[in-house]
């Protein structure tokens, strides 16, 4: 649970004795509220356009409240960058897609369903490819705007090859009745992070997907087990219902109970299994990450994730939805609170990144609404 930092003119060794995590979050939701509420107001009155600046302000705060060893992080992204990214996507993708949709509608009108189908398929494949590119570029953008001690991260890879990789790996993951999804998720994580760097050091991601299979099978089998269980119950109920039929609505009551149990299982057990899987995935993925002499770890386990999500739901529901604006805060706090780093950093060796800095932000990502990590 410690991290040592040396080099420069100061040698920090206090972390050795204090034994707290290398990552610490100092923010408070009251302070965040002072950012989130004006953001909400401004986003509404600008028909949503302010949200790029809103995101930027929130990140500035969250990053600045995050300590890594002995210095706060810094978010240097700009609202204008995100806005330009969004406009670029709208012009390069949104408008052509509207036109293509019009054309394919016209084709259906004319009875050219085959051509319309082909156009739709090509559109879908292109979107799928761009989703992959978007994931990659979002991570790259975020690293290139994150500074620690005046040093930033980034990547020189534009992510176009990753887009192809995303397509074929996802496809292979689905092919054997979705059984290789853990492999595709982990291998894509590794590929993404192996292309990233911080300062002069490249990230190394070597997460293994095989330990993830047990949890995945648990999640995978839940629906089958549920269906099997429900069928058994229905058979039992039907058998007893014959005798109870004379008594009146008792058979009906049993039926209602079965339906309620089935619905509950579907809405409770399935998400729980999904969270258990995701928690293991994230633990393995972060655990396989290295930066020079630093190793990372994510300590949240399935119960932590479950509590986290239940609390999020409670907050959103109890505040009639307003609590939604605190979700970026909650997510970041959860992430930082459970992040851990071990190893040494040589400050003298940690020199500035030479990666290129793109002038536009998460346009693609924003358009497809996906998360970076």
């Amino acid at each position: 649970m410690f991290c040592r930092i040396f080099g420069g003119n100061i040698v920090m060794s206090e972390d050795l004795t204090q034994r707290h995590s290398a990552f610490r979050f100092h923010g408070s939701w009251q302070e965040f509220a002072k950012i989130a509420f004006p953001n909400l107001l401004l986003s509404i009155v600008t028909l949503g356009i302010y949200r790029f600046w809103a995101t930027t302000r929130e990140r500035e705060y969250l990053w600045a409240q995050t300590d890594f060893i002995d210095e706060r992080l810094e978010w240097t992204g700009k609202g204008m960058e995100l806005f330009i990214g969004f406009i670029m996507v709208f012009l390069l993708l949104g408008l052509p897609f509207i036109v293509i949709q019009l054309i394919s509608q016209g084709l259906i009108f004319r009875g050219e369903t085959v051509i319309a189908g082909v156009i739709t398929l090509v559109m879908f494949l292109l979107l799928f490819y761009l989703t992959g590119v978007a994931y990659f570029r979002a991570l790259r953008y975020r690293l290139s705007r994150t500074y620690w001690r005046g040093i930033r991260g980034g990547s020189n890879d534009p992510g176009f090859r990753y887009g192809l990789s995303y397509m074929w790996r996802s496809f292979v993951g689905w092919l054997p009745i979705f059984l290789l999804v853990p492999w595709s998720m982990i291998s894509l994580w590794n590929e993404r992070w192996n292309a990233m760097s911080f300062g002069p050091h490249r990230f190394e991601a070597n997460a293994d997907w095989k330990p993830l299979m047990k949890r995945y099978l648990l999640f995978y089998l839940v629906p089958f087990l549920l269906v099997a269980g429900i069928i058994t119950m229905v058979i039992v109920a039907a058998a007893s219902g014959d005798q109870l039929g004379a008594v009146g609505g008792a058979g009906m009551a049993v039926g209602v109970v079965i339906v309620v149990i089935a619905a509950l299982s579907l809405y409770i057990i399935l998400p729980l299994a999904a969270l258990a899987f995701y928690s293991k995935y994230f633990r393995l993925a972060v655990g396989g990450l290295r930066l020079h002499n630093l190793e990372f770890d994510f300590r949240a386990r399935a119960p932590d994730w479950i509590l986290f999500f239940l609390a999020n739901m409670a907050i959103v529901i109890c505040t009639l939805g307003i609590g939604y604006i605190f979700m970026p805060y909650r997510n970041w706090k959860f992430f930082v609170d459970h992040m851990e780093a071990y190893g040494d950093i040589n400050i003298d060796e940690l020199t500035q990144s030479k990666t290129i800095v793109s002038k536009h932000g998460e346009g693609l990502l924003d358009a497809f609404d996906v998360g970076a990590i």
Partner: protein
Amino acid sequence: MDTFFNVWHYDGRSAVRRKVEIQTIGRQFFLLENERRHGPFSFSDVEYVTRKENVHVYGLADVDGWRLMLSGPVPSELSELLPAHRKYGGWVDRLGLGKATIAFTLASAAAVAVVLLSPQWLAPLIPSSVDKKLGDALVGDFGGRFCSTPAGDAALKKLVNSLDSNPQDLQVEVAKIDMINAVALPGGKVILFDGLVKQARSPDEVAGVLAHEIGHVREKHVMQALLRQMGLAVVLGGVDGNSGALVNNMLAMSYSRNSEAEADAHSMKALGKAEISPVGTASFFERLSELDGSARSGDKGQGIAGYMSSHPLSRERKKAFEKSIVKGKNYKPALTATEWTELKTMCTQDRKAKSGFGFDFE
């Protein structure tokens, strides 16, 4: 100038943290670190980066990662030379939150108003050649679904001629599709679906619906709707996800309701001019209202449904058409009995026309 507050510096080349003092010389400054001196730097190149709790962070233009971090009471001589703190970003900081909110609200309302109103003025400016090309591209020969027989075509032509004074720039067709519907498309194209013609009890009913669609063409509703939809997509593109789509639909719908009423008015006028009785159209809506349930629903539910749906409720339209009946007027049937039979059986007679949509195999 010696200072007592804390100043830290990162040079952007390495992660080494340097405790420094600022030495100001006119519009320039040096950073003194033990025996080393960094600089000179110009105050005009200094940019505000961010705030880390009580530490204000400054950067230097064009030097990646260069940081000057100040904590404690900054001497006023120094703070005057440093750029202002940023809170919300450019415009909002300059105006203040309250004024910026008002300004943004007004600008947004103006943008939405322009998008909603301008199609009415813009649509007539679009040359009819563009309109026609768009219609041709969209419809073509409708996949060979248009029905045609010499007698049926003649009956349809007679109907169109009686309802419009410039029938040459309209293209009215009956399509072999079993749906009770009719559409107006760009380029003066009006398509009556065979299902509508078949279930009609008199040619007067078809005339009313046809006149309604011609009304859409004549009032340039089709181009207006296209422009409005495009404009709303642009303006509300900034709003993410469902809320944007909902607002978009509501605005588009409430407006097209207006267009429907206009097209109805056009239809009543055209019927009157052609001396065709609106009774048929009224009874058509009567039957339609039984289909869409507006005849059965209570008054309250009706109001909501009427607002949200793009077509005004059939029952209200029925009443409007009934009102337009002029008592004592000598109405003539829209078509003779023979013509009406020819029109009704046109699609059955025309065996070459394809039926349905491309995806069903009838």
